[in-house]
């Protein structure tokens, strides 16, 4: 399994690049994950999304989907696509150290 290292801590990632153990997440790891995913330096707006995702997942036991993020975090969907290009739902969860959100059929 691939591993990711930040500030001397090593964590395991699954084949799709999501952290295996969400409890090992640290802000430094978020920066490393963002770097790895090509998002670059995290801004205050990124952190607003990441903080929301972490809190919401802790409360509900599952990562929030895109619509839930945009409705409850105060960051509009369009901006989410700029902050986390290509797949903001999946990418925000990934950088937040959460598992891949389950989409509906």
């Amino acid at each position: 399994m691939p591993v990711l290292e930040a500030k001397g801590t090593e964590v395991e990632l699954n084949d799709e690049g999501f952290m295996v153990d969400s409890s090992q997440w640290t802000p430094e790891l978020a920066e490393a994950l963002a770097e790895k995913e090509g998002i670059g330096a995290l801004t205050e707006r990124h952190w607003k999304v990441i903080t929301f995702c972490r809190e919401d997942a802790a409360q509900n036991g599952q990562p929030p989907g895109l619509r839930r993020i945009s409705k409850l975090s105060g960051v509009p969907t369009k901006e989410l696509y700029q902050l986390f290009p290509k797949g903001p739902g999946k990418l925000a969860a990934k950088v937040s150290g959460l598992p891949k959100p389950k989409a509906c059929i």
Partner: protein
Amino acid sequence: MKNLVILGAGTAGTMMANRMVTRLSSGWCVKVIDPEQEHLYQPGLLFLPFGARDEELNLRARSKTLKPGVEWVREAVQLIEADAKTVVLDNGTKQPYDLLVIASGSQIRPDETPGLADGGWRGSIFDFYTLDGALALRDALDTFEGGRLAINIVEMPIKCPVAPLEFTFLADAFFTKRGMRDRVELVYVTPLDSAFTKPMASRLLGGLLEEKGVRVEPEFATGEVDADGKNLISYDERKVPYDLLVTIPTHMGAPFIEASGMGNELSFVPTDPHTLRAKEHEDIFVLGDATDLPSSKAGSVAHFQSEVVTENLLRSIGNESLEEGFDGHANCFVESGFDKALLIDFNYDVEPLPGTFPLPWVGPMSLMKETYLNHLGKLAFRWVYWNALLPGRTIPVPNRMSMRGKVRPASPAPTSTKGGHHASA
């Protein structure tokens, strides 16, 4: 008298009312609340845009679909006051309940997408998820002279997830029969990464799209519609131009769900995936399109769920523990054009597989295969719906999905999907 109150008399609510009225003891009253005078057979909508003129066969007076003994309250719901165990109606009256069933379905919300419901609506933009939408589209297709027809799913989940594919297959057949297929470009614009949500079915249905010369525009998250310039625009600023747009707009639960603070971000009610009780309320059950479950929003699902909710309402009354009876089972005919259809059967954990249905190894219908018999099954289903399903009769299809008669492929073929949209419980 105790009250079992059911919100909504669509497929799920009508089945529940008719099942419960014969099963509850005389101390109970079954009330169903729905403002609409008529019951619509929604699967019939698919054929109307292509010239079917049987709309009257898809409608029945609601009074005729409810069994004697069911009290129909012809009002809209404004609010559920769960703490007071009361439903507030639009006319201001209050309806107390001992047990509540939410079966208020889902509705299309074109107003959720900027530009969709404005200038082009019913001009160059149509839906087929409503009766008036399907009829308006019938006129539009009848006079369509050619150009690019885009079929667009705005976001998931939607009611009957195979319907947009069926629409596309039927459009291909419709224009072919009219001798104008060469003048029509069909584009299938979807937020999914492939044709459908489950790998094997996605390969099969994606293959059919390719065979029929339909271009697929995957991973397209519709952000807005430029109705004047006739462009679909995604959040990441891709554009798909169209001459005629058939949209499957965002689906949401009933507005009173949000007003009652009981819904998720799409106003669907958080529901236990196996017992179908509302997660937050012991005396409320939820079924059909109104749930937040990753099962399909389809009539067959409502039917399988109705058996579980019937059992659990009775257990709840008897203070027994609930049955974890629902497994996500769905069973859908997929009309593929030229009088053929496929049949798919799946649940939370098992994707659609080839085999026979409903009898193992006998059929007569085939799973995951285009046949004329499946098409006849689809057409015959309207009779089954009015005469067996809605009245709550037992039909010979098991509530839980069966693996008997299904065949797993020996070694999984390489998949074109990336696994991003698979439902699991």
